[in-house]
């Protein structure tokens, strides 16, 4: 099931014109569950340093795509390639989740999955420590190596919690934090693994407008200050349109459009996908479109 993740580009293959500036790339990824095709020949190209949003109606296959990228699912067909900063190519198809994470892809979950009985600090330390080497023997014997690792993870966790604004909630139990704080904590935990690509699964779900604004800023800061590419699944179009460099649209497991936010929102297939889904959605989408036209117009003005 697991392919050799250390294999270099030769083993991975793919189009000869592989763009080394693409940090993450998939070709014809197809994932089926019994008779149901969840992902249908999905091609994705993500540039290093960009914020790419994946949108689509419910059941379009967004989370399936995430799960396929991070090793939770193994698609039956296709290729997934990750190109780390320091060169080379790694195939992600069928890799175990922790290997994918180690290569440099970290994720959050749609329904926040924290270690809820642990403190915020412990949550982040767990992730930070996966990059450190201290075996059980050196820990049991209390060797200097183990103590150093403990110190390093502590420092790193403190730094990241400060980065997401939870520096005064270090020792609170994760399960008793507010929803927004839990969201931030989950992002901090993902960042603690020192990723090159951060996959955020509907981070704005259930947050209030203020938190949304903070989140928007946080995503930008992650992208600019930490230099992490961000792949974002989101329903909140305002957030998508404001932070994403590019947008990819999935419907029924197929990619139906890709491009800058303004390109995508005028794409006929996208409009149809949203209009076709249900009456409520249609109304919402029209509202969204109207809103975005307005906004992109103002963006355009800003740009000038």
């Amino acid at each position, binding site marked *: 099931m697991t392919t050799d993740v250390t294999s270099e580009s030769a083993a991975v293959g793919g189009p000869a014109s592989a763009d080394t500036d693409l940090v993450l790339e998939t070709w014809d990824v197809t994932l089926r569950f019994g008779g149901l095709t969840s992902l249908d020949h999905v091609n994705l190209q993500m540039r290093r340093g960009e914020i790419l949003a994946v949108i689509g109606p419910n059941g379009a296959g967004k*989370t399936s795509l995430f*799960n396929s990228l*991070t090793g*939770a*699912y193994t698609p039956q067909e296709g290729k997934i390639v990750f190109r780390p900063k320091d060169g080379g190519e790694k195939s992600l198809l069928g890799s*175990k*989740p*922790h290997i994918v*994470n*180690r290569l440099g892809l*970290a*994720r959050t*979950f749609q329904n926040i*999955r*924290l*270690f*809820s*009985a*642990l403190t915020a600090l*412990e949550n982040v*330390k*767990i*992730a930070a*420590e*996966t*990059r*450190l080497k*201290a075996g*059980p023997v050196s*820990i*049991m*014997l*209390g060797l200097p190596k*183990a103590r150093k*690792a*403990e110190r390093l*993870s502590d420092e790193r966790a403190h730094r990241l919690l400060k980065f997401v604004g939870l520096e005064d909630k270090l020792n609170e*139990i994760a*399960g008793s934090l507010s929803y927004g704080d839990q969201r931030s904590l989950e992002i901090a*935990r*993902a960042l*603690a*693994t020192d990723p090159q690509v951060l996959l955020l699964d509907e981070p704005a779900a259930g947050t209030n407008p203020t938190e949304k604004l903070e989140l928007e800023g946080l995503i930008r800061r992650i992208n600019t200050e930490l230099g992490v590419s961000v792949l974002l699944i989101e329903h909140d179009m305002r957030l998508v349109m404001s932070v994403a460099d590019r947008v990819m649209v999935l419907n029924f497991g197929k990619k139906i459009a890709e491009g800058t936010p303004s390109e995508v929102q005028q794409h006929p297939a996208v409009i149809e996908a949203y209009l076709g889904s249900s009456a409520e959605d249609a109304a919402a989408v029209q509202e969204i479109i109207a809103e975005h036209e307005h906004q992109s117009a103002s963006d355009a003005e800003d740009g000038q």
Partner: protein
Amino acid sequence: MSAVDTSKNLTPSQAARLRRTAWYQQPRFSRLWAMVALGVLLALVTGEQGNTRDIFFSIESTFTGGGLWVCLALTVGVWALREFAGDALKGVATKAKPGVAGPLGSVRGRIQADQRLRWGLMLLALVLALVVPSLLQRYWQTVLVDQIAIFVLLAIGLNVVIGWAGLLDLGFFAFFAVGAYSTAYWTGRLPVEPPVVLNSFWVIPIAVATCLLTGLLLGAPTLRLRGDYLAIVTLGFHEIIYLVAKNADGITGGPQGARMIPDFSIDFAGISYKWSIDPLPYWYLLVFFIVVVIILFSRLEHSRVGRAWTAIREDEIAAAANGVDTVRFKLMAFAIGASTSGVAGVVFTTKYGYINPEVFPLLQSILVLAYVIFGGMGSIPGVLLGAAALVWLPEVLKDYVDPSDRYMYLGALLVIMMIYRPQGIWPSRRRQRELKLAAEGIGDADAMSEPAGGKF
């Protein structure tokens, strides 16, 4: 019992509906029936021993004897008190409650909070553990060594697997068997000859290594499984190891076991000592091992390894997504946990000088698990207390009840304990939080709830 709690908060409409039901269906009377049933059960439990000649003998004598009326009077009396003097009692209870539960909780809280106090107490405990046994009768010394200390070691090991890593292992005692049979093999007491015959002390590292290896072998094919599935497979492994010990006569000696396994002895750098039949030297040896294991393991608990285990226990999917190598850490838990049973197996075997497969029945695995949960899984002091208490209890019950009824009372105690104090005698803080969160519906308190693969 549960009938008592069913209907405390009645809305007026519910109450109205209830008023229309027949009198015997009213909650008050259904509670009465429950108490009557409890009374009858109590009378049966405490009644005379039955007899296969006349299978109704015990039941008949219970129903014709006075015991039944005493039991019924008691339970119905309790019912009446609760129903008709309930408010008054409640007032007393609430007044009494902080007096009863409060200090215990606060003492534990203070101990857990204050580092220096904790060290002081541990030192005191150690001193007591070294001094007190020498004042005891030799019978209690034997109980301490042969039963309590051995099971404490085992429980500490199982605690790693289930309390920390959340892997439900119902076959833990099998590792003990592996340790014991390793000892018999390396001291040349099995039908198959070892390459060299070793002193029992040298068997310890070998037995630990063998157990580590067996832990890995057991773990590797089963780690994809979770919760209940892991439970039945580990149970199956125990059954297989037990039956191989029993059936492979040519290798293990079969049901007749291995005998004349030599005692520990050291003859090193001018120090020469031989452990023998006296339990005390074995006690000191075991205390040494227990202390070492506790020190090593508590370091692990508060390190990255312990945190990774907790992460796996709480949410394996999230742990893996954050780079925790779940397979490696699970195997580590299996292997490290198993290693203590290796030590226990060697000490046990040399102390007894004799083993046969009947020492390792499935029941023992289930009992060790019960000790860990009873004490408070995830917490080392809890596990120590749990194992000590539940091993000690049947020994002391011997004097008060018919010995063949001991496990009936033990079973009842387990049920009552799980209903009234599911976190165990001395729960770990993490565990307590998990239980609290689970009761509030946030997250799961153990790793048993998820099917293989996870919940996407």
